[in-house]
């Protein structure tokens, strides 16, 4: 392993753990009926967003998905506004108008989640096109999963980014399912990064449960993009720890497979890094976790205490539409 500062490894751990806690606590809120609609947890996939976003500069961009909480947090999103949004409150990122599937955080360059699978792909390429026209060197990471690779816009977007050498990292979170459909049944070549070659796009596979592996590969890809030699396609193999959304028991996920990936829990791996390479103690880590737990509690408090959007104000707002 390369040498990383304790500070950096702690920072990664903080992000991973924050995502874990956010999802875990929100699932509780969902089961209490306080969150409604679709809620797609990122549990088990935390290392992808965390490693990828750690490779970015502050003025870079990301484009997220329906499973977007992890991306938002990894990019520096605020728990208060996130919780408030999934609770549908006026203080949320989208004033309660968007909900889980539409959180966007323009301040951190997070163009937003998307309810259309694959919808973010062309949008992200367009963000990069804007960069290109302006002559800047910002990089855009587009997150998407295996299912989105079968929406035609994946191939189109890959090709468009390629012919214009756009600074895009296509970050394929291959969690091996589109809802209940296993990637092996939806493509003859489940190693989806292999689609890159036909379009002349540099492509690699990486262990999506190992935050440092993701970080390192993304750094390389970002460098390539920054030099005007993009795009790069990265496939991070990972697995969900639960069903597609909160109400999906995920019975189609074979037990052994799930166990295998649970054993390779990204949080555990990152925790080990801290202990083995940064001389952190269990107590050090507990302190970090404690702090995050408290932040999340406060965020929930904030969300719950926030006002519902005013129906009257809303109706007035849309009068002029």
């Amino acid at each position, binding site marked *: 392993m390369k040498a990383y500062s304790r500070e950096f490894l702690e920072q990664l751990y903080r992000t991973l753990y924050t995502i874990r806690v956010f999802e875990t606590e929100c699932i509780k809120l969902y089961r209490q009926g306080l969150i409604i609609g679709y809620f797609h947890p990122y549990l088990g996939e935390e290392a992808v967003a965390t490693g990828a976003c750690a490779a970015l500069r502050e003025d870079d961009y990301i484009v997220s998905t329906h499973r977007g909480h992890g991306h938002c947090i990894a990019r520096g999103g605020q728990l208060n506004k996130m919780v408030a949004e999934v609770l*549908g409150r006026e203080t949320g990122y989208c004033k309660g*108008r*968007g909900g889980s599937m539409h959180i966007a955080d323009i301040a951190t360059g997070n163009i937003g989640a998307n309810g259309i699978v694959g919808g973010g792909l062309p949008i992200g390429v367009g963000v990069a096109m804007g960069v290109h026209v302006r002559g800047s060197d910002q990089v855009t990471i587009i997150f998407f999963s295996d299912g989105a690779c079968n929406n035609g816009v994946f191939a189109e977007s890959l090709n468009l980014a390629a012919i214009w050498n756009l600074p895009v990292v296509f970050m394929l979170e291959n969690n091996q399912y*589109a*809802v*209940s459909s296993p990637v092996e*049944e939806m493509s003859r070549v489940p190693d989806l990064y292999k689609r890159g070659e036909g379009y002349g796009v540099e492509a690699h596979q990486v262990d999506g449960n190992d935050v440092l592996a993701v970080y390192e590969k993304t750094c390389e890809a970002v460098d390539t993009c920054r030099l005007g030699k993009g795009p790069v396609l990265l496939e991070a193999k990972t697995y969900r720890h639960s069903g597609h959304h909160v109400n999906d028991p995920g019975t189609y996920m074979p037990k052994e497979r799930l166990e295998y990936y649970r054993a390779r829990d990204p949080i555990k791996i990152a925790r080990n890094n801290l202990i083995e390479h940064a001389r952190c103690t269990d107590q050090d880590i507990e302190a970090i976790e404690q702090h995050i737990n408290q932040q999340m509690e406060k965020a929930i408090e904030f969300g719950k205490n926030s006002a519902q*959007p005013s129906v009257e104000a809303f109706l007035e707002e849309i009068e002029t539409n």
Partner: protein
Amino acid sequence: MSTETVNTDIKMRELMVREALNEALCEELARDERVFIMGEGIAQRGGSYKVTVGLLDKFGPKRIIDTPISEASFTGMCVGAAITGMRPVVEILFIDFTSLIIDQIVNQAAKYRFMSGGKGRVPMVLRTQGGSGNGLAAQHSQSLEAWYYHTPGLKVVMPSTSYDAKGLLKSAIRDEDPVVFIEHKLLYMDKGPVPDTDYTIELGAGDIKRPGNDITLVAWSGMVKRTLAAAEELSAQGIDAEVIDPRSLVPLDKEMILSSVRKTEHLIIIQEAIRRGGVASDIASIVQEEAFDYLDAPIKILAGKNTPIPFNVNLEKACVPRQEDIMRAVKEILNT
């Protein structure tokens, strides 16, 4: 149900809309081996709204087909299969996602018969689901029937009850031309009587869901239930509303609406979609043209608010006509 003569020997069961749809699919799959079904998660998982539960076991993976997230192409596939003698039924989980397939539906399915000089037919059904009401926000809550209504060559069906759902879906599958069949997410669990016989409902036959004399209320899909509830409550207040459910928007049972308006002289059309460019406007334009002299007051349209559907449940509810909005509008138009 009032327009069909139902044999009294027939056993009626109380079925949920999703069960009635499942029966329709099941019966047509059994009756005609050219019928097959494609969609995301419809086979193994039985569909997000459980409409296709059990079909895989009964009819096997050749006819009940789980697809990748390639909406445009698997819909296009149904066009090709239909042209060559099959009777595909494709499911697009949300009508919002039909924006990905509208080329296949409008430029291919709807026009092929015409473009081929009448030699080719495209007997396929697009089953999809629309409407708001579950906190699913702007990209999973639209009411987009107007897009398909505006397309020559398509039929558009929107059932509101279990009975209608089954009878209309069977007719849609048997139809020689492409049919867009739009279900409503809030209706799947609604129960209603369904006979245990092989019945169909003609596409283009509206249904008077409640006869009345004072005012005509036209509503379809998710709006029928609350319009009927409003009519019941108004009846207690001495206002006798007639509630018409066209059931299929194309073909439209214009005559049923016109003769009702000639009788009641007042018309309110209630739709979930936004008003601008909606089907309600079109019905209003027809009625004002063909029953001008019968109208005692301007035709009123109650429609969805002009906005994408918000996530927050209170805002979401405020976007769509409610029972009390309907009652208020009736009283306003009747000056009572």
